[in-house]
């Protein structure tokens, strides 16, 4: 595994250098070493001499397609995982890019490790983390622990069946096997077991922690509206305060606006500083869209988004 990651990293750098040198792209967006263990940062590289700053490991969790909205004038090379490539296809369907504006360096993904789960598994601060094969070795003051990385994956990564980027211009690794580690998102199963009353209470309790920093919105590649419904003052859909009702309103609409557009990358949940679970909402919508309209986001670059089209045979038993 470690060897495989190293090979991918080298090939990303090689490709990035080539693309920058022959001016195919103006800019490469990729992952760089983070200032803390278990973290990576985003690198914007314009100089072919600096491609060594790009890295690849199991913490390259961000969905970099988010950064494209401010780069409409540049030709961009982007390091993408399976989910990121699906966001790109979904965004292209919404005409967010010019043709040939992007060059996708696709990385068949090894599934990403949830740093929060790792931090919870040890006592004290982690000062160093190394990947070796399927093991994750974390060290801190007075402890060293060997963890099995597969026990610490993000739920969205566990259920992922599109790890190899679709429609990437180049793949820097061999395509990986597309079978989920678990079939359904564990939080959805848990949530659906509850009664409607309990479900609402859970949702109410979790959203009550929200501080409305809008990190979930900012990090989402699909949230690009010039004016978000929460910022609109005419019509004023929702108040700015932290009243439970407004928080719930925001979270229902934020999730629902992803219907048929969410690639399930899980960036919203990772960005949340209050640890509010969010993917049990969006992944459920993805499931519904699959079931109702037989549509999966970002798989087919021609299929129109499900809510902007229709079939005369659509389900309507619920209509009086």
């Amino acid at each position, binding site marked *: 595994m470690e060897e495989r990651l190293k090979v991918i990293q080298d090939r990303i750098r090689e490709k990035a250098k080539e693309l920058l040198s022959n001016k195919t792209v103006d800019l490469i967006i990729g992952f760089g070493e983070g200032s803390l263990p278990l973290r990576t940062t985003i690198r914007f590289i314009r100089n072919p001499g600096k491609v060594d700053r790009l890295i690849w490991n199991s913490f390259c969790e961000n969905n970099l397609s988010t950064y494209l909205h401010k780069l409409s004038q540049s030709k961009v090379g982007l390091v993408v995982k399976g989910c990121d490539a699906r966001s790109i296809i979904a965004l292209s369907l919404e005409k967010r890019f010019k043709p040939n504006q992007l060059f996708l360096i696709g990385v068949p993904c090894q599934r990403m490790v949830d740093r929060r789960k790792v931090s919870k598994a040890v006592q004290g601060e982690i000062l160093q983390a190394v990947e070796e094969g399927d093991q994750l070795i974390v060290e801190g003051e007075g402890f060293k622990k060997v963890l099995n990385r597969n026990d610490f994956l993000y739920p969205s990564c566990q259920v992922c069946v599109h790890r190899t980027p679709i429609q990437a211009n180049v793949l820097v690794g061999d395509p990986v096997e597309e079978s989920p580690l678990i079939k359904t998102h564990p939080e959805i199963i848990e*949530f*659906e077991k*509850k009664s*409607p*009353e*309990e*479900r*609402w*209470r*859970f*949702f109410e309790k979790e959203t009550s922690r929200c501080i409305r920093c809008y990190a979930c919105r900012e990090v989402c590649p699909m949230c690009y509206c010039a004016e978000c*419904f929460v910022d609109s003052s005419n019509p004023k*859909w929702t108040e700015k305060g932290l*009243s*439970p*009702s*407004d928080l*719930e*309103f925001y979270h*229902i*609409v934020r*999730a*629902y606006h992803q*219907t*048929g557009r969410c690639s399930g990358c899980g960036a919203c949940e990772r960005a949340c500083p209050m640890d509010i679970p969010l993917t049990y*909402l969006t992944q*459920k*919508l993805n499931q*519904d*869209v699959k079931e*109702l*309209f037989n549509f999966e986001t970002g798989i087919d670059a021609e299929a129109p988004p*499900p*809510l*902007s*089209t*229709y*079939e*005369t045979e*659509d*389900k*309507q038993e*619920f*209509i*009086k």
Partner: protein
Amino acid sequence: MGNGVEKNWEPKILAFLCNWCSYAGADLAGTSRIQYPPNIRVIRVPCSGRINPLFILKALQGGIDGVLVSGCHPGDCHYISGNYIGRRKSVSFKRFLEYLGFEEGRVQFSWVSAAEGGKFSQVVGEVVQDIKNLGPAKRLVKSRQVGSNP
């Protein structure tokens, strides 16, 4: 309010009716002197495809006990496909609300044509009965902290 329902509680129901069919259907019910419960407040919209899920949430937040969205029958849309598009939004949004724990029946949908005054009165009767069985809306209601019945 406690957990009980006030003795003479009557639900407030918001009905979004499309201009071309259901609104005309409601009008026909009126001109034909067909009786239906007075619990509904009607908002006329150009098409059932015009319904933004935000409208429904905003209504529930403001203290409405039930929402009815009604449009033309499939194939009859004045704008050819507005009700088909609306139907997709409706089914996904309704499912999502129920997943979150909203009671089934809090938000309802119907097809009522301009010739169906009788059906309109029947639909309204059913919706009002359903909402009465469910009781006052509690989820998402803005004024619920002060415990008043909106």
